[in-house]
């Protein structure tokens, strides 16, 4: 049994995959809590795909993919805001348009590459087992920015999640806070895509916080649980992918989603059982 648990992490590239995955999971799951609490999951999904053209351009024109992803993220946010301000369309329409547009642009750019399929697969699904120490060092710096940023912005983000109007009334500057949250999400995506790919980083951004939300009684507890679920998902995902011979990043991404579904169903059954046992509450008396 011990061999079964240890074997997937004996070799250097496996250990780098584990460390890279853990850093990606903890930073994504931490900032992802605010993404879920703000009801911005669709934006997060679009954002994750929105960085694709920047990374693709970096692959084709041979510059730092982190720079490319940062520029693409800024273009994506600017374009969503532009459409929202210049039309009467709801924000989700603008996000949907940019989601498809940026992804298509990314595929168009990468199709100019000589190894089109390999490059695209690597960007979308990551290369967990090919992560270098240099990449891990960059990841660690970005993770520190995201985690410290999330802690420093705790009160403004809490007030914003409670109510943007009340956050404004409390002097918590909700517009600035929202902009800084987007920066933290972008940083997390940029810091994670090499380990798990742009498409699967979304799983680590949303699934651990969503799972934590099912069982948390406070936001600090939700952050701690989310980071823990993300980290455990990486360990279990890498073990399963080693023993089953499946894609490492995809297996890591699936684990927290399965955990979410299992906990959700267990809670539903528990509530149903409790409701059957509890008496019907009396009606509230309303003043005339």
């Amino acid at each position, binding site marked *: 049994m011990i061999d079964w648990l240890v074997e997937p992490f004996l070799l250097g590239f496996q250990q780098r995959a584990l460390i890279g995955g853990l850093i990606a999971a903890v930073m994504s799951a931490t900032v992802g809590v605010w993404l879920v609490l703000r009801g911005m999951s669709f934006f997060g999904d679009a954002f994750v795909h929105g960085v694709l053209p920047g990374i693709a351009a970096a692959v084709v024109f041979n510059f730092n993919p982190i720079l490319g992803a940062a520029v693409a993220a800024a273009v994506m946010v600017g374009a969503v805001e532009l459409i929202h301000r210049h039309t009467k369309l709801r924000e989700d329409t603008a996000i949907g348009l940019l989601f498809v547009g940026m992804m298509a642009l990314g595929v168009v750019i990468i199709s100019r590459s000589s190894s089109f399929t390999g490059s695209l697969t690597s960007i979308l699904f990551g290369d967990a087992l090919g992560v270098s120490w240099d990449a891990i060092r960059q990841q660690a710096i970005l993770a520190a920015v995201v985690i410290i940023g999330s802690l*420093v912005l705790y009160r*403004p983000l*809490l007030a914003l999640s409670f109510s943007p*109007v009340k956050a404004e*009334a*409390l002097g918590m500057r909700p517009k600035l806070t929202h902009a800084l949250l987007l920066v933290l999400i972008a940083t997390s995506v940029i810091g994670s895509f090499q380990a798990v790919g742009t498409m699967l980083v979304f799983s680590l951004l949303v699934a651990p916080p969503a799972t934590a939300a099912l069982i948390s*009684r406070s936001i600090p507890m939700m952050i701690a649980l989310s980071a823990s679920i993300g980290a455990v998902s990486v360990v279990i995902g890498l073990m399963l992918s080693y023993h089953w011979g499946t894609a490492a990043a995809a297996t890591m991404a699936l684990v927290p989603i399965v955990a979410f579904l299992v906990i959700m169903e267990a809670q539903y059954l528990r509530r149903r059982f409790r409701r059957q046992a509890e008496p019907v509450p009396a009606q509230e008396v*309303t*003043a005339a």
Partner: protein
Amino acid sequence: MSTFATGRGLQLGYERVTAVAPSDFSIPAGKLTAIIGPNGSGKSTLLHALGGLIEPQGGHLEVLGGSPEAAKSRVSYVMQSVAFPEGVPLSVREVVKMGRYPSSGWFGRFSAADRDRVDRVMDRLRVTDLARRHLEELSGGQRQRVYVAQGLAQDHEVLLLDEPLTGLDIVSARTIDEIIHDETESGRTVVHTTHDLDEANAADHVVLMSGRVVASGSPAEVLTESNLRVAYNLGELHESTGLIVDDPHRAC
């Protein structure tokens, strides 16, 4: 009589939508003012403007002798109980503690005085027993008491309340009504929105709204039959003036 707020040709709205057409009015300081009008008449919009939460589209608004933005830290705004964040695991005590954010800022530690202030306002609003409960586990009345406690936890000279007594249980309505009167008796300005003519009659000053300020003054001056007919039967006027209201549920 000193003045809390004065509007001159004040026009309010959100983005391209106008909710309050150019209006003149004044609201006294140290008194209880009720803003009354039908759904979508611009009551909440005016309250937001007084709290410095939206900028005027036109005209001039002076609050506490300066701009609403400058006065914001002296004004405490209390939300309606129907508005609450679903799925956010926030306890009652955490929500009330937010009232101390303006004084403690983004990072400042909560002092013993802050914690004491939170305890006292929770006691006054009778929500101490609910401290560990989540907002979504409360009734509308309990939630409104929590929001008022949050408003009182903030250092303030003015209390703005958005429909604080609408649809509440008896205990909550009486508790909040007592707080409103305690606040005015201690010399603070209280402004609240309402649908209820009795609540408006109980105020010192009334602002009657219908897509603009129809009248502003004492209840006897404002709540006349002719004014109320203008305010509550304005479907034609709204169509002819092309005013756009801020509430899709408006019943003209």
